[in-house]
């Protein structure tokens, strides 16, 4: 892996979004990943619809939570994702209004990624932003800087939030993952969370995945 990487500088990441009062982080994590995959394979950055997943992914539970692995299946089975503009976010589940004619993006498959953070970094630099799930301990009060909670306080087996890794690097020799969150730009560092890299902090390496776009 290169020593640092940031997909934001390369046009692969849309603006930070806001899930509102709804536990739909899983949808934002997955659309962020698909946005990156589509950009890298087709050269266009499109902001994609989370609301389509809330309404039409019946394996998941909309604002009550969901799993990225199910969401990839739903996108594949539905026949793609519409754009944010065509199927805008409402922050609550509604009747499915997906139209195959309006789908702008499709995926071919999805893959589970390594738990080795060095391999994850190498994968990210070559292939694009990664959907991950973490233990959100302390995030309620996070303002800025690189977070590294004591391991027992942020155990990898109490995962409860899905986000998107868009880059990595070092700040004053402390390795970090740059993580795009979905709580708006008025949280964290303009909507981003920086988490220690290399120690399995908060289970960041336990549920890494990506869509496959050909």
């Amino acid at each position, binding site marked *: 892996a290169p020593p640092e990487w940031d997909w934001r500088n390369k046009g692969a990441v849309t603006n930070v979004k806001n*899930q509102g*009062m*709804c*536990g739909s*982080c*899983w949808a934002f994590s997955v659309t962020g990943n698909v946005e990156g995959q589509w950009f890298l394979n087709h050269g266009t950055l499109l902001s994609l619809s989370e609301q389509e997943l809330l309404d039409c992914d019946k*394996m998941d539970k909309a604002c*009550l*939570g*969901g*799993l990225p*692995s*199910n969401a*990839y*299946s739903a996108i594949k089975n539905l026949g793609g994702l519409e754009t944010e503009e065509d199927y805008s976010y409402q922050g609550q589940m509604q009747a499915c209004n997906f139209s195959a004619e309006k789908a702008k993006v499709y995926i071919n*498959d999805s*893959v*589970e*990624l*390594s738990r080795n953070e060095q*391999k994850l970094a*190498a*994968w990210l*630099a*070559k*292939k694009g932003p990664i959907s991950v*799930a973490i233990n959100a*301990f*302390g995030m*309620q*009060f*996070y*303002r*800025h*800087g*690189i*977070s*590294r*909670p*004591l391991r*027992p*306080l942020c*155990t990898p*087996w*109490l*995962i*409860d*939030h*899905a986000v998107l890794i868009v880059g990595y690097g070092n*700040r*004053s020799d*402390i390795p970090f993952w740059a993580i795009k969150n979905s*709580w*708006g730009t*008025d*949280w964290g560092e303009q909507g981003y969370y*920086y988490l220690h890299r290399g120690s399995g902090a908060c289970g960041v390496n336990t*549920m890494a*995945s*990506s869509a496959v776009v050909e």
Partner: protein
Amino acid sequence: APAKPRGAGDEAWGPPSPALLEPARFALEMYNRGRAPGTQAVLRAVRGRVRQADQGSLYSLEASLEEPPCNDPTVCQLPVSKKTLLCSFEILDELGKHMLLRRDCGPVDTKVTGAGIPKDAGITPSHFTRSLVLISSLSLPYPDEKNDTLSSVISLLNKGPLSKDFSMKMLSVFKDFLTTYNRTYESKEETQWRLSIFINNMVRAQKIQALDQGTAHYGVTKFSDLTEEEFRTIYLNPLLREDLGKKMRVAKPVGDP
């Protein structure tokens, strides 16, 4: 819905499950840490639930504690007539080692006198003092200065729970929060309740700050007026813990021929 404080008699508590006794004893031990024998609180009742995984268990307990009578009014944390506390504990048992992750205790149905805070923004002294009583029972040490606003508040807190300076500072921080995040509440009672949560959260943020091994700063955010339970329920995704989703094929590592 917000988990507002309940009275001890809201519902009957059955005998505690044997599985809860060990973590409950640990929580009590932590609660009484540093106290001389004879001044320690005793466990009256406990109930709760446990979530188990490969490497450990997470216990969420509600316990009723009874404080011994306090004869010195200058040091008493609760009015003499109110000795019962309702506590929420979260205890992690990982590989046989216990760790207290969360502790929130408050007196049951306590009515206490004012702390000298102005009647402003719908916040009454009695409710404010109640929050201070709750904070003063927290025992973790505070770290060096990292967040100016928060640290100054906490240093004032350490000077004495009923300090007027502390009251004013805390109210000022809360008012800034309301302005910054354009927050309004439906009633004075709601405002008072949110203030007590806000104060409790500032102490929690300071503890998280103290225990962080990176460079992160924790403090006031737009979620500072939510209880931990509200935050989890509204913004987080409990299904991820279950991980019963579709199994995906494993990606080929990059650079692998």
